[in-house]
């Protein structure tokens, strides 16, 4: 269940590994522990968004949460966060190699020291997970909280798990 969701960043080629009848969870991350996203359990409470914004810059930055809950029909929700793509568009398009894989968490992490704020990655991510912060003028994305994702920790419905 650990197959990475997308070998290519284009949405068209989302891996069938987590499609199919039994509704397997979306698996994000790799190797040791992964962030498992289970939309079927999601109750749309948005606690994950809140937790994320707390973890990344404190309250009042809700708008910049790196996970989002999207409605998908009646009482159905899909949590959208970075898929930590194998061959990630953001990292490929970055002209200064500021986005690199964290060896430990396997998350793609933006180095704020290296990012020059050109905005190319935001426009490049096929899933819309790369965010260009207009205030800090740096790219922001999910970094799996360095190995303890707040979204999963706080999800009351266990629709997000880090395991």
């Amino acid at each position, binding site marked *: 269940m650990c197959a990475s969701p997308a070998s290519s960043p284009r949405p068209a080629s989302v891996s069938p590994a987590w499609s199919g009848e039994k509704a397997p969870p979306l698996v994000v991350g790799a190797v040791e522990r992964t962030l498992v996203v289970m939309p079927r359990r999601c109750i749309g409470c948005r606690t994950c968004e809140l937790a994320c914004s707390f973890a990344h810059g404190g309250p009042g930055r809700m708008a910049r949460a790196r996970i989002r809950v999207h409605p998908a029909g009646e009482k159905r929700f899909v949590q959208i966060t970075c898929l930590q793509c194998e061959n990630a568009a953001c990292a490929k398009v970055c002209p200064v190699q500021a986005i690199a894989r964290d060896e430990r968490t396997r998350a793609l992490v933006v180095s704020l020291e290296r990012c020059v704020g050109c905005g190319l990655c935001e426009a490049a*991510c096929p899933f819309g997970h790369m965010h260009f912060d207009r205030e800090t003028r740096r790219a922001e994305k999910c970094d799996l909280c360095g190995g303890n994702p707040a979204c999963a920790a706080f999800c009351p419905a266990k629709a997000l798990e880090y395991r």
Partner: protein
Amino acid sequence: MAIRIFIDEQEVKAEPGESVLMVARRAGFDIPALCYHEAVESIGACRLCLVEVRSGARPGISTSCNMKAEDGLRISTDSPEIRRDRATNLELLLLRAPGSPVLRELAARWGVRPRLQPPPDAGIANCILCELCVRVCAALGHNALAAVGRGEKKRVGPAFGKPAEGCVGCGACLSVCPTRCIVMKDTPAARTIWGQSFEFHRCQVCGQPVITEKHRAFAIAKRGLPEDYYDVCEPCKQSQASQRFASVVW
């Protein structure tokens, strides 16, 4: 092969040739630095990242951003001399950029109050002439900016003083500017920067601006991207993705 350097007597691992400032910061040492950026070559302009070298043939005060880590290097990050010289250089910078929050915060922290007269305007208010914009612009391949002139008459801006051909309106110059002194204005219609106006490429779904047309064309041509690469904005891509995932899940 990793090497060891000693910062304030603490042993720190580094790669040979790494910037001492980078190594020190990674190890949690607080060294002020305004003109340093990891993505570009250091030129040592602001003179705030001073440390004291205590080993080798040439001990003494030096900038750390453009100092390369060498095995056995010993530095200290604080001393009365370092503090004094940092403060003096900060005072000189503050005269150029009295409106910069970063400088003001440092000044408040170090108790620096300018006692001298400001130098003649560098053409851009609050510009400290660190050339980060110039260096980043060149690193991105646009080469739209240049430093000209000597002494206090030095200026930074579009090469040859007129709107530069290479500029794509990406705004990275502003992103890296330590005093945020570069004026960039976005309206729904276009972005204005360095005396030029750039039309936005719009989201094919909602019509919101995504990226400037020129930047898009540059990126597509330079990186061999598909034509439709920048056709949808961040929120629209998210909702598209959510629909697609939903269809897979249910």
